[in-house]
C-alpha cells in the first residue's frame, strides 16, 4: 500500500481515466438483462441517443471551447437522412407512379426530387447522415474560424443557422414533410437484421454506438490534435504564436462533433420511428447545452450521464402535465445554479469528492500525528 500519492505510469493513468467510461458502458449493455420491458427499453434507448448527442457537444464545447448552440442542427440532419432512406423503403398506400412518399403525393409532387434519389440506397443514407452534418459544420466553421470569430459570436451564429434551416425544412413542405416531419417509416434492416424500435437489436445497436462514440471522443482528446484543441480553448493566441493553424483545428473538432451528432440523429430516427423539425429545434438544442453543463462539460462520461439522467427524469415526470411545467421551472433554476456555482458540473463535483476521500485515506494512513492541515497541500 503506497503511503504517498502514487506517481502512476502512463498506462495506469490511462486505465484510471478509461475506467468510468467502461463501467458506464458495461451498465448500458447489462441493462436489458435487468429490464424485461420493451417499452421501457425503447425509452432508455432514446435517452442513450440523447447522451451521444450531448457527448458530441462536450467535445466541441468542453474541449474545444466552441459553444455550439445549434448542435441539434447536425442531429436533425442525420435524423432526416435516415428518415428519407427508410421512407423510400416503405410500401405506401397512397403513392404516385414511382413509389413517391405519401406527403409528396398530397403536395402534388410528380417526380421524386433529385436529392431524394440517392437515398434509395441505405449505405448512401448512412454515409450522408455522417458526412452532410460534418460538411455543413466544416463550411460554417471555415467562415467563422477563418474570420477569427470566437466566443459568444460563434454561439449566436450557430443558433441562427439552426433556426433558419429549421424554418426552411418546415417551409419546403412538399420535399420535407414540413411541420409534420417524415412519418410512417420502414424498419431499418442491415445485413438481414431488422431493427424494430422496441426490439433488443435496436437497443444493442444504440448501446454499441454509445461505446463507439465515447471511445472515439476519448481517443480524440488524447491525440496531439485533441491536445492542441484544448490548448486553443485555454489560450488561443499563444497557440497561434507557436505556429499552429488554429482555425484548422477548430474546424476539425467542430466537424467531428457534428458527425457524431449526425450519428445520434440517425439512431434517434430508428428509435422514435419518425423525423420531425423539432429534432433541430431551439428547445432541444438548448436542452443539450443544459445536460452537458449539468453533467460536466469537460468530462465525456459526465456529459453522457447528465443527458441520460436529466432527460430520463424529465421523461418520467412528463406523465403529468402540471408536474412537467413546474419541472421546467425547477430545471431552469437548477441550470442557473450549476452555471454559477458548479462550472464543471456534477463530474467536477464527483472529482472533488473523490479527491477528498483519497486524501482522507492518505491522511489516515500517515497517522494523526502529522496533522490534518497538511493534507490540504497534496495534489
Amino acid at each position, binding site marked *: 500500500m503506497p503511503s504517498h500519492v502514487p506517481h502512476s505510469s502512463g498506462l495506469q493513468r490511462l486505465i484510471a481515466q478509461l475506467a468510468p467510461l467502461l463501467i458506464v458502458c458495461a451498465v448500458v449493455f447489462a441493462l436489458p438483462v435487468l429490464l424485461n420491458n420493451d417499452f421501457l427499453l425503447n425509452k432508455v434507448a432514446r435517452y442513450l441517443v440523447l447522451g451521444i448527442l450531448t457527448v458530441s457537444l462536450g467535445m466541441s464545447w468542453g474541449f474545444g471551447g466552441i*459553444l455550439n448552440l445549434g448542435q441539434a442542427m447536425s442531429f436533425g440532419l442525420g435524423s432526416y437522412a435516415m428518415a428519407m432512406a427508410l421512407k423510400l423503403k416503405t410500401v405506401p398506400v397512397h403513392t404516385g407512379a414511382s413509389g413517391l412518399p405519401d406527403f409528396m403525393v398530397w403536395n402534388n409532387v410528380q417526380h421524386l426530387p433529385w436529392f431524394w434519389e440517392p437515398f434509395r440506397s441505405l449505405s448512401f443514407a448512412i454515409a450522408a447522415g455522417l458526412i452532410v452534418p460534418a460538411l455543413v459544420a466544416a463550411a460554417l466553421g471555415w*467562415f467563422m474560424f477563418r474570420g477569427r470569430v470566437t466566443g459568444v459570436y460563434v454561439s*449566436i451564429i450557430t443558433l441562427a443557422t439552426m433556426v*433558419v434551416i429549421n424554418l426552411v425544412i418546415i*417551409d419546403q413542405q412538399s420535399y420535407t414533410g414540413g411541420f409534420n416531419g417524415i412519418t410512417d417509416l420502414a424498419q431499418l434492416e442491415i445485413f438481414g437484421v431488422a431493427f424494430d424500435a422496441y426490439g433488443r437489436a435496436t437497443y444493442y445497436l444504440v448501446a454499441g454506438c454509445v461505446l463507439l462514440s465515447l471511445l472515439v471522443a476519448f481517443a480524440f482528446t488524447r491525440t496531439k490534435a485533441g491536445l492542441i484543441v484544448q490548448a486553443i480553448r485555454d489560450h488561443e493566441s499563444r497557440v497561434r504564436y507557436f505556429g499552429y493553424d488554429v482555425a484548422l483545428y477548430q474546424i476539425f473538432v467542430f466537424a467531428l462533433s457534428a458527425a457524431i451528432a449526425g450519428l445520434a440523429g440517425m439512431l434517434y430516427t430508428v428509435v422514435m420511428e419518425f423525423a420531425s423539425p423539432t429534432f433541430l429545434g431551439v428547445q432541444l438544442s438548448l436542452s443539450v447545452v443544459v445536460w452537458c453543463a449539468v453533467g460536466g462539460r469537460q468530462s465525456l462520461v459526465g456529459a453522457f450521464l447528465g443527458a441520460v439522467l436529466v432527460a430520463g427524469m424529465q421523461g418520467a415526470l412528463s406523465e403529468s402535465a402540471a408536474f412537467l411545467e413546474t419541472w421546467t421551472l425547477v430545471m431552469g433554476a437548477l*441550470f*442557473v445554479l450549476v*452555471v454559477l456555482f458548479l462550472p464543471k458540473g456534477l463530474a467536477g463535483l464527483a472529482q472533488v469528492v473523490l479527491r477528498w476521500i483519497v486524501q482522507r485515506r492518505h491522511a489516515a494512513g500517515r497517522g494523526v500525528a502529522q496533522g490534518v492541515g497538511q493534507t490540504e497541500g497534496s495534489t
Partner: protein
Amino acid sequence: MDQFIEQIVTGLSIGSILLLVALGLSIIYGSMGIINLAHGEFVMLGAYAAWVFHTYLGLGLLASLVPIFLVVAAFGWVIERYVLSLLNNRPLDTILATWGVGIMLQQAVRLMVGSELRYVQLPPALSDSMSVFGIPVSSYRVFLFVVSIALFGATWLLMNRTTVGMKLRAIIQDRSVAASFGINAKRVYALTFAYGAGLAGLAGALVSPLKSVSPDMGTGYVVDAFMVVVLGGVQSLAGTVASAFILGELSGGIAFLQNDTVAKAIVLLAIVVLIRFRPEGLFTARVRA
C-alpha cells in the same frame, strides 16, 4: 413605381421593429460583452405588462409605456445584480445563465397566466391609416418608426452626453483604471443592464398590438435581433440602426419576391459570408483587443 415605394415603406416598418428589439441587446452586448439570451423574455414581459395594464387597470398602451419600462428594467436590475455580476470573467457562461433565467421567466408566465394567446388593443388614436408618399400606411407603423428613431436618439444622448454614459464608456475601455478613478463599475453595469432590459420591455409592449402575445413570443424576435447586432458590429449604435434597416429592407424585398423563410435564409447566408471578411461587423472601424 408605387409597388417599389410600398416595398421600401414595408422594409422601413420591419426595420423599425428590428431596431426596437435589437437596441437593448446591442447596448448590453456592446458594453458588457454579455449575450443576453433572456432578451426575448424581456420582450415577452413587456408585452404581457401591456396586456395586464390594459385588462386589469384599464390603462391604454401609450399611458402604460413608462411604467412598463420601469417594471421590466427592475427585472433586469435584479437579474444583473444577483446572477450576472457573479460571472465577471466568464463571458460564455453568461449566455447559459441568461438562458436559464429566460426559461424560468417564460415558464413562470405560463404558469401564472396560461399559454393562451392574448391580444392588446391598438391605441384608438393610431388605429387609422395615413398616406406616406401616396401610399396608405397604418398610422401605428409610422408611430413605431418615429418611436424607434426617438429611442435611438435618447440612447445615443445617454451614452455620449451624460455622466453615466461617460462612466460606462470608461469602464468599457478599462474597467480597473475606471474603478481606480472612483467609478462604481458594479452599479453602472447594473444600470446598463436594467436600461437594456427596459428597452426590450418597451419593444414588447409596442409590438404587442401587431402580433398576438404568448409566453414563447420572444424566441423569434431574439434571433432576428442577434442578426442585427452581428451585422452592425458591437460598440456601434449607428451600426445597429443601419443594419436594422438594411435587414428590414432586405427581408421585406426578398419576402416580396419569394417568401419570409427564403428571405431569412438568404439574409443569414449573407451574414455568415460577411463574417469571413469583416468579422467585426459592417460598421465598426476598428476592434480593440
